[in-house]
């Protein structure tokens, strides 16, 4: 009978994504409720060294598929290998992180397994035998509780939402043979920013600018982000004006983010923007219009010109450091 929780722990160039730790921690919580074991899977090339790390978050066993053909993520190779692992291990639950790669992989794998997949989930609970996943729909205007049928039950979790918990344990690392099989896509080139830059979807602090920035000079925001160790975001208006790259856009047609702190500067708070940042833990709004809708969604608001208020916040933070 299918048993245990299997977790696909995503690594990129030898570093686990934060969501990998979140998935293992969440898997541990579910497995404890069921009294079952947690097995994590790491795929890549030259990844033996990092695999053991997952024990710290509660993996009893860590399966490592190390193969040059897995050095770069391709949908086919990863789906082929993970499919075999699922067949061999017969888990009751399969967890992945809903990163760009995780979404691509989980959707393909679910179709191959012929099972249901709950994508981009923010909560999981076991109701007896039933696994109920909560996921935002309609751009987060509504939350849906979905039930999964078919084994394994597949869940992709939204990055930055589930809590990371460390345990005092070490997992057993086991190398496995993999067969990446035929691959229909080829990675020609990777154009990635320095690994030190935190992606919006994983950031704890985001400082975003909107049309109120008035132009491409985002230096006041950059300085605030810098003292907070945060990442820069933008509204669609700021992106459409060409002030910021598309990859900075937060919202329904941009990134969905869940930081601890989201500071919206010169952003009115249109419903499509709220769809991207509504699940932030704390929201601060700085806008010179006291009627701006963003204030209704903010925990703290300051009605001021952002070019006065933002540097003042930066100065205040520097003072207290």
């Amino acid at each position: 009978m299918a048993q245990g929780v299997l977790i696909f722990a995503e690594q990129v160039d030898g570093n686990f994504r934060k969501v990998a730790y979140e998935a293992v921690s969440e898997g541990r919580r579910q497995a404890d409720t069921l009294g079952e074991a947690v097995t994590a899977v790491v795929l890549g090339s030259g990844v033996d060294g990092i695999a053991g790390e997952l024990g710290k978050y509660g993996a009893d066993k860590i399966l490592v598929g190390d193969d040059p053909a897995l050095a770069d993520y391709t949908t086919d190779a990863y789906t082929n290998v993970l499919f075999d692992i699922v067949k061999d291990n017969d888990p009751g639950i399969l967890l992945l992180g809903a990163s760009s790669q995780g979404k691509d992989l989980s959707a393909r794998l679910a179709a191959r397994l012929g099972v249901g997949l709950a994508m981009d989930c923010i909560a999981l609970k076991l109701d007896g035998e039933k696994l109920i996943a909560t996921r935002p729909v309609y751009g987060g205007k509504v939350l849906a509780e979905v039930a999964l049928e078919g084994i394994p039950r597949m869940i992709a979790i939204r990055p930055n939402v589930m809590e990371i918990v460390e345990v005092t344990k070490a997992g057993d690392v086991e190398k496995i043979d993999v067969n990446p099989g035929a691959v229909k896509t080829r990675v020609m080139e990777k154009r990635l920013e320095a690994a030190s830059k935190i992606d919006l979807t994983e950031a704890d602090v985001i400082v975003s600018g909107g049309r109120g920035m008035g132009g491409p000079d985002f230096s006041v925001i950059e300085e605030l982000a810098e003292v907070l160790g945060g990442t820069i975001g933008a509204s669609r208006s700021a992106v459409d004006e060409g002030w910021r790259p598309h990859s900075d856009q937060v919202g329904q047609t941009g990134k969905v983010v869940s930081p601890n702190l989201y500071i919206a500067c010169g952003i009115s708070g249109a419903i499509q923007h709220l769809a991207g940042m509504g699940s932030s833990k704390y929201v601060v709004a700085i806008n010179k219009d006291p009627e701006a809708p963003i204030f209704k969604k903010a925990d703290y608001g300051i009605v001021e010109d952002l070019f006065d208020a933002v540097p003042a916040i930066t100065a205040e933070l520097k003072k207290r450091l």
Partner: protein
Amino acid sequence: MDIVVLLKQVPDTETLIQIADDKASIRTEDVKWIINPYDEFAVEEALRIKEKNGGKVTILTMGPARAVESIRTALAMGADEGVLIDDPATEGSDALGTARVLVAALKETGFDLIIAGQRALDNDGYQVPAAVAELLGIGQVSMVVKDEVADGKIRCESTVEGGTVVIEAGLPALFTTQKGINEPRYASLPGIMKAKKKPLTKKNLADLGVDPSEVGEAQAKCRVKNLFFPPERSPGKIIEGETVGAKTAELVRLLREEAKVI
């Protein structure tokens, strides 16, 4: 070059969403419907590829009768043909059920390239395109901001955390759109007139030879049990103060001592 765009009609992103009495669906009475914005990018991209490489653009939708409006809009933008699969038995299909129906239709229309949205802005599923590619056994590339077709291959820039990855796939292949790929054109008046004469076929499951027990609510493996509204954020505190400095000092204090986020 036969290009098929998978297009879904969804509620306007401005629409106030109301939960229906069954608590598992939304009320559709007062909803304004639009082309899923990511699918609009897909239509535009298909037209650009056709303009460069020649060929035909077909719009494929599974949905209720009202979805014809969205297909017409795509035809007015310049697509050549539309296919609507409208069958009550498809209601409640999950991603795999939807993909089975779309794949049956794709096998009839033929395809060299399939373009879909990365996600539909109703269920935010991110799943149907991958399921379609899997059932067809073709390559997929997700969240594409740039693409080029040459020599029976497509080269795409796929967005990932922190940048892009350039991926090449032999045709036939499927890719999904990401914001930034293009600015969709508007349907022109002559375009709207011409669209009225373009072929728009309606089909049901029997026409496609799809077994109704393979799709729809009964077969779905991922089912919505309950819809509810997220808890309202408690009305925010507007920070008062004599000067900008007083307000910002108070904000920093609150973030440290009350929210404890910095």
